[in-house]
C-alpha cells in the first residue's frame, strides 16, 4: 500500500478501511465527501441497487441475509447498507440489522454497513444514495439497502433503488389497509414473509385489495410468499427478482440513476443556496421567523423575494458576460 494513494484510489481498489472511511464521510456530511464522490463518479461500474423496506420486525434483515447468500453463489460481491432509526432525543441508535447478517462478516466478498438515520432533515436519501455509490465504486454489485418502512423512509428508498421490495407479515392486514396508496405504489415486488405462520391468506387478500386501488398505468408488483427463516419460497422470490432486474435496460437504468442522483443533488444544493440567500437577505432563519410572527412578512413573500434576488443575480451575471 502506498500511503500517498488518495482515498478514492484506495476505495477503488476495494480496501476495506478506506471504504469504511469514505462511508463515514458521507454519513457525517464531511465537507470532503462531495470531492470524494466527484473523483469516484466516472469510474463507478454498472450496478443494481435493491431496496428492501417494510414494517419493523417484518424480517427484512433475515431476508437480506438470504439474498446475500444467493448473490454470493453467483460470485457477485454484495454491498449492504442497513439503516435503523436514531433516537430523536439522544441521537443514539441501536443498529441491529447486522446481527442477522453477521455470518457473512468474514466473507471478503460482502461489505455490510449499518447506519443510523440521524434524523436527517430531508430524510436519509442523500447519505444512503452516496453510500451506495461508494460501495459500487469499490466493486460491489448488487448494493442492498434496508430501511424501516415507517413514515417517509420507504418512499425514499424507492428513489435510490432500481428495484424496491416491500416486506409484509401476517397479522398486519389492518396496517396494509391503512397503507393503501403510498407505500404500495413504490413497491416493485411484494414479499409476504413468515409464511410459516398463520394468517397468510388474510394478508394476501388485504394486499390484493390495496393493489386494486393503485393507478392502472403501473405494472402490478408480483406478490411472493416466503419464509426467510426456513427458506421456503425463496426460489420463487429470486425468479421474480431476476425478472425485474433483467427487465430494466442497463442503459436506461444508468440514465435513470444519473437523473435521480442529479435531482437529489440539485435539491440539496438548492436548499443550501436558499439558506445562503436567506442569511444575506434576513440575517438568519430565526430573524426571519421573528419578522413573520410580528406580521410584517409572510413566508410566501420571503420565498418570492429570495427567488427574485436569485434572478437578479443571474441577470447581472449575464450582463457582465455580454
Amino acid at each position, binding site marked *: 500500500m502506498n500511503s500517498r494513494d488518495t482515498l478514492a484510489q484506495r476505495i477503488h481498489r476495494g480496501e*476495506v*478501511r478506506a*471504504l*469504511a*472511511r469514505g*462511508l*463515514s464521510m458521507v454519513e*457525517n*456530511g*464531511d*465537507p470532503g465527501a462531495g470531492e470524494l464522490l466527484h473523483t469516484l463518479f466516472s469510474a463507478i461500474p454498472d450496478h443494481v441497487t435493491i431496496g428492501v423496506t417494510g414494517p419493523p420486525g417484518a424480517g427484512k434483515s433475515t431476508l437480506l441475509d438470504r439474498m446475500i447468500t444467493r448473490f454470493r453463489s453467483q460470485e457477485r460481491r454484495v454491498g449492504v447498507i442497513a439503516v435503523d432509526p*436514531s*433516537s430523536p432525543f*439522544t*441521537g*443514539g*441508535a*441501536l*443498529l*441491529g440489522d*447486522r*446481527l442477522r447478517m*453477521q455470518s457473512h*462478516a*468474514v466473507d471478503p466478498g460482502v*461489505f*455490510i*454497513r*449499518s447506519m*443510523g438515520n*440521524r434524523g436527517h432533515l430531508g430524510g436519509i436519501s442523500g447519505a444512503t444514495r452516496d453510500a451506495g455509490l461508494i460501495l459500487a465504486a469499490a466493486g460491489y454489485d448488487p448494493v442492498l439497502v434496508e430501511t424501516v418502512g415507517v413514515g417517509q423512509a420507504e418512499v425514499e428508498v424507492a428513489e435510490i433503488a432500481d428495484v424496491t421490495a416491500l416486506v409484509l407479515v401476517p397479522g398486519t392486514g389492518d396496517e396494509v389497509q391503512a397503507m393503501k396508496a403510498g407505500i404500495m405504489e413504490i413497491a416493485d415486488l411484494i414479499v409476504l414473509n413468515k409464511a410459516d405462520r398463520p394468517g397468510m391468506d388474510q394478508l394476501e387478500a388485504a394486499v390484493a385489495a390495496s393493489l386494486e386501488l393503485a393507478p392502472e398505468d403501473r405494472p402490478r408488483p408480483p406478490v411472493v410468499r416466503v419464509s426467510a427463516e426456513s427458506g421456503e419460497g425463496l426460489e420463487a422470490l429470486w425468479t421474480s427478482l431476476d425478472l425485474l432486474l433483467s427487465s430494466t435496460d442497463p442503459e436506461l437504468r444508468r440514465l435513470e440513476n444519473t437523473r435521480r442522483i442529479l435531482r437529489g443533488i440539485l435539491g440539496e444544493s438548492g436548499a443550501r443556496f436558499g439558506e445562503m440567500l436567506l442569511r444575506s437577505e434576513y440575517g438568519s432563519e430565526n430573524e426571519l421567523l421573528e419578522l413573520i410572527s410580528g406580521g410584517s412578512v409572510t413566508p410566501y413573500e420571503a420565498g418570492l423575494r429570495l427567488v427574485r434576488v436569485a434572478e437578479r443575480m443571474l441577470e447581472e451575471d449575464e450582463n457582465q458576460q455580454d
Partner: protein
Amino acid sequence: MDRRTRVLIGKPGLDGHDRGAKYIARALRDAGMEVIYTGIRQTPQAIAEAALQEDVDFVGLSLLSGAHNHLFPEVARILRDKGGADIILFGGGVIPEEDIPGLKQAGFKAIFTPGTPASEVVAFIENELKNRN
C-alpha cells in the same frame, strides 16, 4: 458535520448469556452513541471485520466463559493487522483480577468486571474521546 461516536459490542466465545452485552449496548445508545451489536458466539475475526467495515471508534467485548485470555488479544491482533490499531478496545465479563494486566498489555484500555454500572462505561468512552481530540 454530524459525527457520532460509534461502538461495536461483540461477544466472542461459547457462552450465550448476552444480558450484560445488551445492557451496555442500550446504555451507550441512551448516551447518544451509535451501537452495533453483533450477537453471541462470534469469532474474533468476525468481530474484527465487522468493526472495520462499520468504522467504529470503540470495540467492547463481553465474555463469561473464561476464554478471554485467548480471544480478547486475538481481536486486538486482527484489528492491528488490518489497519484498525486506532480503534479503542475495552472488555467486560467474568475476568479474574490477575488477568487484567495481561489484557491491558494486549491493548485493552479498560476491563469492567460484573456489577460495573453502565455509567462507568459511558464515562470511560467520553474520557477517551476527550483525550484523543
